[in-house]
Structures are given as structure tokens and as C-alpha cells.
């Protein structure tokens, strides 16, 4: 076993998840592949969304994969960072909007 929870080499083993559960793994990859095909959104737009979500999920494998993928698609570093800020804004907004619960409670208990 590695001394670290994350190993960059494991990204290449992603496809091996079918080893322990073939049917569900294959269904997942079929779905995953379809999601990233051109549709109402282009593959480029989908890759940028994936990059932003990779950050909000804080998944090192996904950040590695979608940084490379967006680079290959000609996405500029400014576009990448703006996408990450969109994710970060939603993350912080999601935390802050919950403060309305805190405020409601404060007002009720100590208003």
C-alpha cells in the first residue's frame, strides 16, 4: 500500500473499477461517455463545467484530468480560472445563504 491516500498513477486505473462490479461499472462509463458528447452544450463547455465541479468536489484526479482536457481543447488559463471562480462562488454562496437559518434562529431566540 502507498503511504498516501492519493496517487496520480491511480487516475489511469479509473477504468479498472469494472473489475469488482462489471455491469454497474460499464453502465457508469457508458453514461459518463454520453454525458461528455456534443449536445446542447459543446464538449468544450462541458469540459469547463467539469473543471469547475472538480474543484468544488476537491477531487485531485478530476482536477488533473480536466485541466489536461481543457488545455487540449484550447481553453485559456483565464477561462479556466473564471470557471473555478464560478464553482467557488457557488460554494461560498451556498455556505453564506445558510446564514439566513442562523439569522432566523438568532432573531427567534434573542430578537
Amino acid at each position: 500500500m502507498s503511504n498516501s491516500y492519493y496517487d496520480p498513477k491511480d487516475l489511469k486505473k479509473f477504468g479498472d473499477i469494472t473489475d469488482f462490479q462489471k455491469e454497474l461499472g460499464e453502465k457508469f462509463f457508458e453514461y459518463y461517455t454520453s454525458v461528455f458528447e456534443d449536445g446542447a452544450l459543446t464538449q468544450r463547455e462541458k469540459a469547463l463545467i467539469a473543471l469547475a465541479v472538480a474543484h468544488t468536489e476537491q477531487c485531485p484526479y478530476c482536477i488533473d484530468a480536466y485541466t489536461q482536457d481543457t488545455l487540449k481543447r484550447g481553453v485559456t488559463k483565464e477561462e479556466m480560472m473564471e470557471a473555478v471562480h464560478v464553482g467557488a462562488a457557488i460554494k461560498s454562496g451556498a455556505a453564506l445563504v445558510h446564514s439566513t437559518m442562523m439569522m432566523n434562529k438568532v432573531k427567534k431566540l434573542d430578537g
Partner: protein
Amino acid sequence: MTKLNLKSLKRRKSLLAQAENQLDFLSNGIFKKGELPTFKDKINANGFYPLKPKTLEILQINLGYMCNQVCSHCHVDAGPDRKEIMTKETMQYCLDVIEKSGAHTLDLTGGAPEMNPHFRWFVEEAFNVGIEDIIVRSNLTIIKANKKYADLPEFFKKHRVHVVSSLPHWTKGKTDKQRGEGVFSASIEALKDLNKIGYGMPESDLKLDLVYNPSGAFMPTDQASLEKDFKKALIEDFDIHFHNLLAITNLPISRFLDYLIASDNYEDYMHTLVEAYNPTAAENVMCRNTLSVSWDGWLYDCDFNQMLCMKVDSDRNHIKDFDVEALQKREIKIHQHCYGCTAGAGSSCGGTTT
């Protein structure tokens, strides 16, 4: 005006300016240790070794290594300080070969091929001896570099030349980073000039294709998808049109090899290429239907082998001794850089190969 950021490896007296040092590097390390299979072992496993030519279709002629640009990834190590240039005498040998070789396409490259003083004469004579299609790999900025080149679009049009030009990105930042400051703006102006006389316009038979190569240590993505993005951006931002986008993988030689080593990306990049090996791309490699001629008339299986000084494996290895039948019997010379042409969707001077 474009500003040059770099000097050629040769001018810098870099060890990698010598082909044998590049080949040594590619032979050792991860390949010597057995961490990755050599290209020979890899294609042998698919029954493609020895790699043999198919019918000769394209003669790619390098008119010289002189260029008005010094691009960071140039596999030719071209630049203004490179003085190697094809003479009219060697061009005449090429014309004799064009007449009898059976090749239907002449692919003129450099450096900036237009900087050869005999360029226009050669194009005219090549059509006179019966070549069907002439491709000129124009860097675009040459059209804007000096008044004497300003009428090149008209010259191309007059002779129905197929123009193929590098434009690694639709933004200034990424293009200038790779090709030099000012290159993007000059390229856009040159593209407008070409569009104005019909090049690259929808339905026009004046062919204008663009070449994309990645700005760093990664492979290109799907060519069709990139073409869509290029067209959308260039039309929206500049009202510029072109026909096809050719996506080319950077091969690990010359300045790109230098960059890979300096940025500590060499091993990962080679792993990426080897893992993306595609047998169909191996079957369709361009060296099987193309011959490359250097500025001094030597024959090579491709432009990359030319830069690595790997002459064709034949005693008829100079343009003045050209013998198409003898050359068809040769074995194509290969080395680890060939992984660049067999990775993913494949890569050639005409874009993807699968």
C-alpha cells in the same frame, strides 16, 4: 512587427542542436531501462515492422531553414539565423523527379519557404512539369514581413496554391507565447488578405487550411471539435474564414524536446504518447506515402527524420539519384519520436490519420 523571443538551438550552441545527441537522448533513459517499449518493439507487436512504403503520393520539399519567426516548438529549429537554403540547381533535380515520380502533390515547407529567392520560379515550374496540387506551408506573417512578400496572396491565387498555415490558437496570448510577440496580429492581417481574394471562403476552391499544435506538453484533442471552436472564434472575433483545421501532435525532437526536458515533462509526455499508441494510426503514418527532400537534396522518410539526419535506407538517397522503384523497396527508418505520429487519432502534416 513580430518580435523574436528566441534564438535557434544551433545559434545557442545547444547540445540538442546536434541530431545525434537527440537520438542518444531518445534511445536512453526510460527506453533503455525498459520502462517504455521502443517504437520498433511496439510496432513489431502489431506486425508493422519493418515499416514499408506504399505508393508515393507526396513529395515534401524543404526549401530552407531560414524563417522570419523563431517558434518555441519548431521541429526544424528554423529562424533568421539559419542560412541553409535550397539552390536552383537542387530545385531543378526536384523538378525532374516531380515529372517522373508519380507523386501528385508537392508540399513546400521550410523555414519560411517563400524566403527562398527561387520560390516563385519553382512553384511555376512545378506546375509546368505537371504536378496536380502544390501545398505551401506559409507561416502567414511572412506576407506582412516585408513589402516584397505583400503580393504573395495574389501569387498563390494565380497558381491555385493550397495554403496551409500554422495558427496554434484563436487568442493573441496563446499564439504569441508559442510563435513570438506580434505573430497573432500579423497572422490575422494576413488571413484577412487571403480571405479578401477568396482563400478559405465557404464554397471557394482556393484552399486555406490552418494547423493547430498544442502549446505545451499535451496532445491535441479531437480535430473536428477543435475546428468547430476555431471557426466560431475566428468568425465572431475577426470575420475570418478557413476550410479545415489540421491537428498535429508535437514530436519530441529539436526545440520541443528541449522544452520537454527543461520543463521536466519529457518522461510524462513519452508515457502519454506510448499509452495513446493506436495501431490504426501506425498503419496510416505519412512516411508510407511521402518522401521528404532536404534543402541540400538528401532524401528522408519524413521531415522529422530529416531533422534527425536519418536519411532513407537506400543507396539512392539523394534527389539527383532518385529511383522510385529502388526507394519503394526501402525500410522506413523509425525511432522513438515516431510515437508522436501514432498516438491517439494519429498525426501527420495533413492532420489526424484515423
